[in-house]
C-alpha cells in the first residue's frame, strides 16, 4: 500500500458523464491486482473532505494505471476538472482482488455501467484465455470502450436499457441466454460481476440457481479505505463467523456465499 502524489497523464471524457484518467506510478502498477482500488484525493482542500475510492481499471507498460469514473457528485465533478500534468494524491492499491478462475473454467465477466472498470483489468490479466465479457449500459452514448488502454481480443457483448445498441434489455439477459445455450457442468464456469446492486443481485441469483462460482465487486461509502474506521460495512451471510464485512478490506470482491444479499442496499 502506497501513499503518493502522482502525475495525471490524461483525464478525458470517453462516454456520457464518464471519464478515463491515466496516472503514472510504477509502485502501484507493480503491486496492483485486478479487483483492487485506490483512494483518491480529488483536490487539496478540506471540502469535499474524504478521498473517493476508484477501482483500478487497467495497466499499461510498467508504470501506468487507469481509473474510470462517472461524474455523480461534487467530488467527481472536481476530479473531472483536473488537468494533465497535475498531481493527484493516491493511496493504494487496496482491498482483496478477484481470485482467478481455475484453468479449466470459462470466465464470464458481467459489467453494469461503470462496473466495467475492475473487470477490464481482470480481462487484461486473463487475456490469453477465452473470456465472455458482457456489458450493460443505459444507452448507446454511455457505452465505455477501453480499447485505448489495451485492445483485448475478448468476446464482448453489449446490452442497453433503451435498446439503442446491442441487446435491448438488462445485461443479465445476456448472461441468462449464455447459460441456457451452454448447459455444461457447474464447475466449468466462473462468474465475475460489478455494477449496480440490483444487477449484482440478479447475477447472484442466477449463479446460486446454477451452482456456479461467482465473485462480486461491491461499492460502499468509504472514509479511510484501510479497514480502520469500519464505515463501509456490509452484512455477512448468516453462517459466516462475523456479523459484518468491510468492503475496503475484506472486499471489494466477495465470493457469493459470504454476503447477505437480501439486505444489501443501494449506496
Amino acid at each position, binding site marked *: *500500500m502506497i501513499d503518493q502524489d502522482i502525475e495525471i497523464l490524461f483525464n478525458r471524457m470517453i462516454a456520457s458523464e464518464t471519464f478515463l484518467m491515466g496516472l503514472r506510478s510504477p509502485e502501484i502498477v507493480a503491486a496492483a491486482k485486478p479487483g483492487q482500488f485506490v483512494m483518491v484525493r480529488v483536490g487539496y482542500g478540506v471540502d469535499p473532505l474524504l478521498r473517493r475510492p476508484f477501482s483500478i481499471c487497467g495497466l499499461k507498460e510498467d508504470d501506468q494505471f487507469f481509473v474510470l469514473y462517472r461524474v455523480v457528485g461534487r467530488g467527481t465533478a472536481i476530479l473531472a476538472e483536473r488537468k494533465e500534468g497535475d498531481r493527484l494524491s493516491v493511496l493504494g492499491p487496496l482491498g482483496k482482488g478477484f481470485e482467478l478462475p481455475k484453468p479449466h473454467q470459462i470466465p464470464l465477466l458481467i459489467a453494469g455501467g461503470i462496473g466495467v472498470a475492475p473487470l477490464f483489468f481482470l480481462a487484461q490479466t486473463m487475456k490469453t484465455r477465452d473470456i465472455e465479457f458482457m456489458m450493460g449500459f443505459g444507452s448507446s452514448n454511455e457505452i465505455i470502450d477501453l480499447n485505448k488502454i489495451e485492445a483485448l481480443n475478448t468476446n464482448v457483448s453489449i446490452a442497453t436499457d433503451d435498446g439503442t445498441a446491442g441487446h435491448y434489455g438488462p445485461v443479465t439477459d445476456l448472461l441468462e441466454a449464455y447459460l441456457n445455450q451452454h448447459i455444461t457442468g457447474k464447475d466449468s464456469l466462473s462468474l465475475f460481476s460489478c455494477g449496480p446492486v440490483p444487477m449484482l443481485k440478479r447475477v447472484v441469483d442466477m449463479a446460486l440457481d446454477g451452482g456456479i462460482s461467482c465473485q462480486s465487486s461491491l461499492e460502499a*461509502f468509504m*472514509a479511510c479505505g484501510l479497514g480502520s474506521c*469500519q*464505515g463501509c*460495512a456490509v*452484512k455477512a451471510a448468516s453462517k459466516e463467523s462475523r456479523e459484518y464485512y468491510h468492503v475496503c478490506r475484506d472486499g471489494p470482491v466477495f465470493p457469493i456465499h459470504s454476503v447477505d444479499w437480501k439486505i444489501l442496499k443501494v*449506496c
Partner: protein
Amino acid sequence: MNYSKPDLRTKLGSLELKNPVMTASGTFGYGKEFDSLLDLNLLGAIIVKGLSLKPRGGNPPPRIVETPCGMLNAIGLANIGVEAFIKDKLPWLKRLDTEIIVNIYGESIDEYGELANLLKDVDGVSAIEVNISCPNVDSGGMAFGTDPYVSARVTERVLKNTDRPVIVKLSPNVTDIRLVAKEVEGAGADALSLINTLTGMAIDIESRTPILANVSGGLSGPAIRPIALHMIYQVVKTVEIPVIGVGGIMNYRDALEFLIAGATAIQVGTANFVNPRVTIDIVEGIRRYCIEKGIAEMSELIGSLEIARD
C-alpha cells in the same frame, strides 16, 4: 535550553508523552492498519478503537456520510471486545515505542468497572480513556456524558478498578460542558479529553429517507474545530487537570491553536483518513514552529493564549 531542538514532551498526570500528538479513538483502528504508511514509533500515543466487554458488530450500513468539511459516522461502536484486544492486538502494539491508550465504553456503570478491572495489570496499557458519550441503558439510552453526576459516578467506578491514569472523554452534546468537566475532575479523573463528535444527520432527498441507517450520527472533521476549540478553552479555565484537545485538527496550525488555548496534548482523528501521515506532519510542524518562535519546551506554548483586558 536548546532552541534548535525543542523539547516536545508533555505530561498527562503521571503519564509522559514524547510529544503532544495522539491518534483519536475510532480513527486508527488498532494501529496495525497504518503501520506500512508511517512510523508509529514517532507518535506521542495511539488511542485504540473503543472496547466493550463483548465484541460488537456495529450498526447496519450506511454508517458514514460526508458533509461539508466533515463527515457523520454511526459506526455503532463496532469492536472486537476487550479480551480479543488483549490477546490478539496488544502484543504487537506494546512493542512500539509509543504509549498505547485503551478507550473503553460500557452500557452501565458496572460494565465500565468490569472493563477497567480486566485491563488492570495488563502490560502495555499506558492509560485508559473513558468514552461516556454512549447511551446508558439503565437510563433509557441517555448518554452518560450528558449528566454531570452520572459522568462522575462512571469516573469513580473506573478509578476504583484501575491503577492506570484515567482520561475521561467528554461529550459536547450538553448544555454546558464545564459542569461535566468539573464533576469528573472532582471524581478524581487524571485528565479530560474533549470533544467527542457532535450529533447530526443527513437526508437523501430522492428517497426522502435519512442517509444513515441509524438516522443520526456524530459529526467530525474541520467543521467542528471552532466548537471544539472554544469548549477546550472554557474547560481549561474550569479545571486544574490536563485537558487533551480533539476536534477537526487537520494540520499543525490547527494543533497549535488547541495547545495555545491550553490543551496539554491533542488527538487527531478524521484527518487520518485524508492524510494517513498527518500525525507525523503535525509533530514536525509543531517542532518547526517552536524553533521559529524560540520555544524550548511545551510549557512555554501550552495555554499561552493572551486575552486583552481593557
